[in-house]
């Protein structure tokens, strides 16, 4: 091994966890796992008796946008979606069985692409609200597709879909806007998070 190769190896060994997954370090992954766990647990613990479809988006999408805003790197949404999806399957959340995983994973995946489109400016209330609403609607679409795949009668799936889309948009946007406010307040204080 010549000298430059040795120096390169030494540099890699000095910070082996800088690029653990998707350009994310191990510390970021642990924080994102925490957000993912919070999403699944909050859905399990918080049962607000609002009887409105999509009301859980207010904290579900809020936590997703907050996680993405505080760790603005590609892949952070995917990690949160993966962790919350796996936990949802393990905890038996929802009526879709193992397919419930997609309900948690797709909003996270969508948020990764949306954040790129909005230049990672999730601290803006407008961007936060739009991202929250869109990922909340993506959850609704996954629900619809899972219903079709699981042979649920079309009457149950299509009736009230318009109203459901409005409630998903409103609660998702509210969650995203709240997350944007929190990101704006927290981000300067987390400058030396690493």
């Amino acid at each position, binding site marked *: 091994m010549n000298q430059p190769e040795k120096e390169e190896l030494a540099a890699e060994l000095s910070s082996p966890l800088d690029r653990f997954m998707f350009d994310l370090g191990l510390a970021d992954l642990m924080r994102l796992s925490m957000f993912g766990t919070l999403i699944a647990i909050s859905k399990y613990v918080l049962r607000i008796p609002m009887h409105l479809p999509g009301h859980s988006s207010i904290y579900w999408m809020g936590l997703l946008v907050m996680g993405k805003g505080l760790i603005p790197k590609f892949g952070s949404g995917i990690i949160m979606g993966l962790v919350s999806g796996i936990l949802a399957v393990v905890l038996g959340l929802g009526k879709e069985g193992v397919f419930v995983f997609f309900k948690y994973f797709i909003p996270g995946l969508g948020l990764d692409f949306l954040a790129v489109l909005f*230049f990672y400016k999730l601290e803006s209330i407008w961007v936060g609200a739009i991202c929250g609403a869109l990922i909340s609607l993506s959850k609704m679409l996954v629900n619809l597709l899972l219903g079709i795949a699981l042979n649920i009668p079309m*009457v149950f799936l*299509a009736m009230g879909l318009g109203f459901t*889309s409005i409630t998903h948009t409103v609660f998702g946007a509210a969650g995203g806007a709240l997350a944007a406010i929190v990101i704006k307040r927290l981000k300067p204080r987390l400058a030396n998070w690493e």
Partner: protein
Amino acid sequence: MKIDKRIVLGLIFIVVIVGSAFLLEHTVKVQGSNSARIIPVIQNNETIAFVDAGVIEQLREQEHAMREVSEGSDNTGEVSLEFVLGSVGGFDYRYIEVKGLDDSETWRLEQSKLDPAIVLSSNMSGTVAMINSEDGRQILIKAIKEIHLIK
């Protein structure tokens, strides 16, 4: 493209998705009603529920589970009209009026004379027929379009 334009595009995209959801709901409702694949249950001029062949199938399973009828019995694919009306929340009515896809097909009965032998069965075309299972399996309505509950 500036962020402001992207925000406007995002808002337009949300409106498009919500509009599509309303359009899909409306299309399913109109097409289903015209082809009798979706049956509205109407009470006091208000639709209290929609049923289709899939709902009939699920209600059949529930009724059979409740009455402990084996799956191999000859009335597979059928659920009593009484059970369907109870499941959709129909109450406080005197007459039941069932209209068929063909306008000439209308069947009316007093609630007190409602017989468990009158069953609903899903057809191959996705519509639902009404049959009297005791009277030589007489077909009362070939394809149900509407069910009215009248006071």
